[in-house]
C-alpha cells in the first residue's frame, strides 16, 4: 500500500514537473515559431485578428521585397565575410597569445596578462568614439576591416585559451623540442591539434559575438551596401511604412543558420557561448 502511494506521488510529481517545464518550453520557443509564420505571410496577416498561426505562401514575395529594400543577399554576404574572417583570424591570434601565457616564462608575462584581464571588465562603449575617429581618419569607415579589426585581440578569448592550454603536459612540448621541432612547428602541429575542443568553443563564442554585433557596425557602417544583418534589420524598423512580413523574414534569415548550427553542435555551442565556463 505504501508502495502504491509512493507511485501516485511520483506520478503527480512527474505531471507537475512536465507541466512547468512544458510552459517554459512554450514561452521560450513560441517567438521562434511565430517568427517563421510571419516570414511566410503578408504584412497584414501578421496583425490579423484572431492571429494567424499557420504558415502562409508569401515567402518568396517577402524575400523579393526584402531584397529590394535592403539587398538581403549582399547583406548576408557582408555578415558572412566579416564574421568568418574575424573568427578565423581571432582564433589564431588569441590561441597563440594564450599558448605563450600558459606555457612560457618570460619577462612582462604577468603584467601584460593582468592588463588583458582588466580589459574584460571595460565596457566597449568607452572605445567607441576614439575608434570611430581613428577609422574616419584613416578612411576606413564603411569597410570590412573597420568592423573586423577592433575586437580581434579579444581578451576573454585569450584568457580562455590560456586556461585550457595550461593542461598541456610540459613533457609533450619537451619531447617535441628534443625531436628538433621549432617553437612554431610545436604550436601548429602539437598544441593546436590537442586543443581542438577548446578551439571549437572559443570559435563559436567569437562567431556569435561578431554575427550579433550591432552597436559598432551601426556606428561605422553608414552605407547600406555595407550593412551587416543586424544593422540592415534595424534600418527596416526605422522605415516610415514598415512591412512586417519582410522584417520577420529578415529576422528568420539571421537566426536560422545559427539555429541549425546550434542543433548540430549543441554541446560545443553551449560551452562556447558560455565562454567555456560549462564543460561537458
Amino acid at each position: 500500500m505504501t508502495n502504491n502511494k509512493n507511485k501516485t506521488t511520483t506520478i503527480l510529481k512527474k505531471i507537475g514537473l512536465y507541466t512547468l517545464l512544458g510552459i517554459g518550453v512554450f514561452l521560450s520557443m513560441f517567438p521562434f515559431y511565430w517568427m517563421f509564420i510571419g516570414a511566410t505571410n503578408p504584412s497584414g496577416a501578421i496583425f490579423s485578428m484572431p492571429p494567424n498561426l499557420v504558415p502562409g505562401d508569401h515567402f518568396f514575395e517577402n524575400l523579393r521585397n526584402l531584397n529590394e529594400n535592403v539587398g538581403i543577399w549582399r547583406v548576408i554576404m557582408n555578415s558572412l565575410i566579416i564574421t568568418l574572417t574575424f573568427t578565423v583570424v581571432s582564433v589564431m591570434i588569441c590561441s597563440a597569445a594564450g599558448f605563450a601565457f600558459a606555457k612560457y616564462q618570460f619577462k612582462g608575462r604577468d603584467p601584460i596578462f593582468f592588463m588583458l584581464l582588466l580589459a574584460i571588465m571595460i565596457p566597449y562603449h568607452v572605445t567607441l568614439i576614439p575608434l570611430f575617429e581613428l577609422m574616419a581618419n584613416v578612411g576606413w569607415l564603411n569597410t570590412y576591416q573597420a568592423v573586423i579589426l577592433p575586437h580581434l585581440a579579444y581578451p576573454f578569448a585569450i584568457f580562455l585559451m590560456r586556461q585550457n592550454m595550461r593542461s598541456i603536459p610540459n613533457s609533450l612540448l619537451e619531447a617535441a623540442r628534443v625531436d628538433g621541432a621549432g617553437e612554431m612547428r610545436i604550436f601548429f602541429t602539437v598544441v593546436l591539434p590537442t586543443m581542438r575542443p577548446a578551439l571549437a568553443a572559443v570559435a563559436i563564442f567569437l562567431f556569435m559575438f561578431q554575427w550579433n554585433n550591432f552597436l559598432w557596425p551601426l556606428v561605422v557602417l553608414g552605407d547600406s551596401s555595407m550593412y551587416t544583418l543586424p544593422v540592415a534589420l534595424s534600418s527596416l524598423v526605422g522605415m516610415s511604412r514598415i512591412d512586417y512580413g519582410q522584417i520577420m523574414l529578415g529576422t528568420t534569415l539571421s537566426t536560422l543558420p545559427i539555429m541549425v548550427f546550434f542543433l548540430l553542435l549543441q554541446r560545443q555551442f553551449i560551452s562556447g557561448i558560455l565562454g567555456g565556463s560549462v564543460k561537458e
Partner: protein
Amino acid sequence: MNQSTAESKKKSKRKFITPKTAPYIFIAPAVILFIIFTVYPVVQSLILSFQTSSGGVSTFAGLDNYRRLFNDPLFYKALGNTFTILIIQVPIMLTIAVLLAVLMNSALLKMRAFFRIAFFMPAITALVAYAIVFMIMLDENYGLVNYALSLVGIDPIAWLNDPFWAKVSLIVAVTWRWTGYNMVIFLAGLQNISNDLYEAASIDGAGKIRQFFSITLPQLKPIFLFTFVLSTIGTLQLFDEPFILTGGGPNNSTLTISLYLYINGFRYFDFNYASAIAYILVIIIALLSWFQMKVVGDKDD
C-alpha cells in the same frame, strides 16, 4: 665553406625563434592590436572627456563635461532607468533560472537534452532579431500578446507606448533572452554538488525545501556571484533592445546609459560629452563589480 654558411644560416634562422623569443612572437599580434584598438581608445576617451571642441578645434575644458553631466536631468533619467531595470530584472531572471535548473536536475526528468536545447535557444538569437519580434508581438492594437490577454478579458495594454509598461516590456524581453543561458550555468553547478550532502540531509530528516535552502543555495553561491556580475555588466550596457523596441521612449522612460551615450555621440556628434558618459559607465561598472565580489567574498571568511 659553402656548407658552413648554409649551416650558420640555418642556425641563425633557428636562433630567431628560440624558446626565449617565441612567447614574444606569439603574443605580438594580440598585444599590438590590443594597444591600438583598446589601450589607445581607452586613454583617448579619457582625454576627450576633459575637452570641448567647436569647429574642429579641441580645447581643454577640465571637468566641464562632467559638471554638465551632473546637471543633466536626462542623464539622471538614463541612470535611473538603467538601475530600475537592473534591480528588477536581474533578481527575477536569476530566480527563475535557479528554479528551472532545479526542475531540470530532477531524477524524474527524461529528455533532459531536449529541454536544455529549448531553454537555451533564445540565447543564440541576435539581439536585434529578437527585439524586433518582441516589438511586433507587443504592438498595442494588433499584437499577439494583447490578443491573448483579451481572451481572458484583460484590456489592451500599451506595452511600448506607456512609460511604465515600456520598462516592463524591456524587462520581459531581456528575461526571455537570458534566463535559459543562466539556467544552463546553474544546472552545471547543481550537477557538481555531491549527492552525499543530500543523502546525509535526508537521513537527518530534512525535507526537499529545507535541503534547497540549506544545501543547494549555499553550494551555488559562487555561481550566483558569477551570473550576477555578468548580468549586471550586461544590463548596464543595455543598448540593442531599447534601441529597437522603444527607441528610448516614450518620454525617455526607457533611455539607458548606453543609448544616451550613442545619441550624444552619433546623433549630436558631441564626442566629448559622450566620452564623459562612457567614463561614468566604466566607473559604475568597476565599483559595482568590486562591491559584489567584496560582499560575497567577505561572507566566505
